[in-house]
């Protein structure tokens, strides 16, 4: 409440009151904008907090406990992290995951881009071809795993029968430790390629046709056009594909589901990805604390890898000049 001083003209005081009201209205407007912004963000923030943030905090804290799986919690500090350093199965699982990531990320990039280039042209029935290539993505991973397991069975499986016709039969695609990870990678790429094809297709369709026409007039061949037009203009798409496929390779559901259904981490731990080993420790051995610690390490590793990707690509701009 404002108090008028003696001797101040009434119109001056009225002017000041008006200015104060105006300021208050302006503040109210700012407040309302803040409020609207927060309200728009609230559902997502709540979802992130409840379903991602909180479990992450709990998981991180669980890593400092020995948890029996039956309600007994003992604080053990860094013991779980020390155990990881000398656990050959954990170290082996990290190596297997590294191989998986190194092959899967570039594999998805090349296959996804290759398919997108193939189905880019508007030829008859192209929608059907695109749909067929995307089809594996809409099928449950468990079903995919079961079907491929059946197709890849030793000796009488469809894959072996076909390969035997070209003299490459007799292999155990899911039973030979030297082959199983590669088989798993092939099935994974087959499953995910349609999704990445669509992403690249969207990127390719953003490139103006005139650039290619101009390049052709200047005498550029298909390879030159691809190298100097397509690839540079696909930088943002490439960054997105690399980022998403990296996350998918390290922690994606296809890694766990296909291993669970097709190999159970075998033969001889050859497909024991870290996500699967975490599952084994938690649900088969009831070592929830150790599993949580390993999950934290995996998330940290993923953060580092993502940071490296950001750094190497200048935040997706690929601007090295």
């Amino acid at each position, binding site marked *: 409440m404002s108090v008028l001083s003696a001797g101040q003209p009434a119109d001056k005081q009225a002017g000041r009151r008006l200015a104060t009201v105006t*300021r208050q209205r*302006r*503040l109210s407007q*700012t*407040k309302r904008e*803040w409020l609207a912004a927060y309200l728009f963000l609230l559902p997502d923030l709540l979802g992130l*907090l409840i379903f991602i*943030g*909180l479990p992450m*905090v*709990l998981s*991180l*804290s*669980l890593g400092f*406990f020995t*948890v*029996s*799986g*039956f*309600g*007994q*919690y003992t604080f053990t500090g860094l013991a779980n992290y020390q155990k990881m350093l000398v656990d050959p*199965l954990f170290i082996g699982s990290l190596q297997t995951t590294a191989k998986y990531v190194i092959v899967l990320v570039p594999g998805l990039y090349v296959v996804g881009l290759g398919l997108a280039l193939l189905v880019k042209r508007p030829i008859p029935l192209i929608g059907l071809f695109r749909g067929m290539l995307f089809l594996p993505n809409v099928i449950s991973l468990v079903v995919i795993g079961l079907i491929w*397991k*059946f197709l*890849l*069975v*030793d*000796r*009488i499986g469809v894959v072996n029968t076909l390969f035997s016709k070209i003299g490459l039969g007799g292999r*155990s695609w*899911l*039973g*030979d*430790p030297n082959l199983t990870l590669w088989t798993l990678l092939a099935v994974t790429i087959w499953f995910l390629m349609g999704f990445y094809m669509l992403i690249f297709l969207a990127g390719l369709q953003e490139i103006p046709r005139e650039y290619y026409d101009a390049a052709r007039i200047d005498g550029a061949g298909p390879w030159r056009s691809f190298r100097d037009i397509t690839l540079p203009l696909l930088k943002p798409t490439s960054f997105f594909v690399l980022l998403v496929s990296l996350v998918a390779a390290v922690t994606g559901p296809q890694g766990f589901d296909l291993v669970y259904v097709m190999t*159970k*981490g*075998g*033969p*001889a*731990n*050859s497909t024991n990805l870290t996500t699967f080993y975490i*599952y084994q420790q*938690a*649900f*088969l*051995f*009831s070592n*929830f604390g150790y599993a949580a610690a390993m999950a934290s390490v995996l998330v940290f590793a993923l953060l580092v890898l993502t940071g490296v990707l950001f750094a190497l690509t200048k935040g997706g701009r690929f601007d090295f000049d």
Partner: protein
Amino acid sequence: MTADQQTAGPQRQSVGLNRRSLIKVGAGAAGGLGLFGPSALPLISRRSAAAQGDALTFWQFYAPGGRVQTQTTWFEDCVAGWNAQNERQVELVYVPNSDYMDGTKLPTAFASGQGPDLFIISPGDFLRYFNGGVLQDLTPFMEKEAIDDFFPDVLASRIVDGKVYGLPMEVEPMAMYYDKAAWDEAGLTDSDIPETWEQLLEVGKRLTNDQRFGVLFETNPGYYQNFTWYPFMWQGGAEIQVPESNKSGMRDPGAVAALKFWQDAVNQGVSPRTELGGGAWNGPANLGTGYCAIQNIGIWSISELRQDAPDLEYGIFKLPVPEGGTYTTDMGGWAFVANSQGKDPEAAAQFIVWALGSMSDDSIQRGVDWCTKAKSDMTPRKSVQDLAVEQGGFESGPLKLFAEEIFPGGRGEPRVTPEIYKSISDAIQAAMLNGVDPEQAAEQAATEIEAYLATYTGAPIL
């Protein structure tokens, strides 16, 4: 600074403070949950569990809606019989087999304090739940006569310090099943039934062709693979743990020879590296489809083959032994157990004893019905065995062979901790499928087991 900015300053500050407060409260809540969450969540969960109805929940993979109707009916009749006589009701909860064994449902339920009141477990999983402190002692609810009625070797893996913590519903010995058509096609006769490992591999070679494997052993890593491998280790005189010591018997020649036997079977092309139908426990999917001519499988397959491969003509023979070895087989089987942290552990224990462990005629007949009518199993109790014989349950066919030749000399499935299981599993996988020298694989397992036993404080490993 303008007047507007001056005015907006405190306002921004006010918003900033609010935001900070919000962050503080959020961080406090998250931190609190982070610090106390591990212990707080099960408490919350237990409260919600207690709020759920009064019926005792019974998790298993048979009913309602199980795959084999006779088994579903047995479970439903058993529970209906109890519910008709008792105020504390029991409710059957079906969990798919694949989610029960090596799955997440049971461990997750216990981890969140919402374990079922009643459930079934195999000896392979006994220590995990016993050492977790969730198994109810059934002894006070049993008559001495009834405890003595169980075959000691069968009950042993469910006893700790003289107290009974689970009652077996069945005994499931392992044997070798063979396809008679494939046998005849290869020119083999009854005199070719193999009695030694060497003979098995020879016969397996004769049965192998480009569409079929001679002999199938389990290849998937897991509790089941270990279970099927143990008898071959025992036949050569080896043990997982040397009795009364913290030494592992995995280095013994018997264990090394058993690893080499399975390795030879794969390396010689007699055994596959993968199987059909989810695993070598599945008779109809493997032997029934002609994928293999001989399959290492348990007694349960009699009823499965009857239902899913009724046209298959098959024979059964005992597990072959190494030169100079002694016959034995592994006898698995599931047991009813009660959750000591459940709604009413005493009532749950009483239900188990009523169902499977009393000397009443009903309880004994229930055992006979399960083992010889609903399923095809050996019985865990003398009185049940006698009544089953009296009622002609083992009079003819494959069950007679199991009762007279395969069951005698068998050993109960060992109970081990998950850590020991994993060391043995890795040795089997390494030797069988990765070409690792069996001696080296066995040495690695023995070293790991001994390191584990040095600090292990739970119930004895058997």
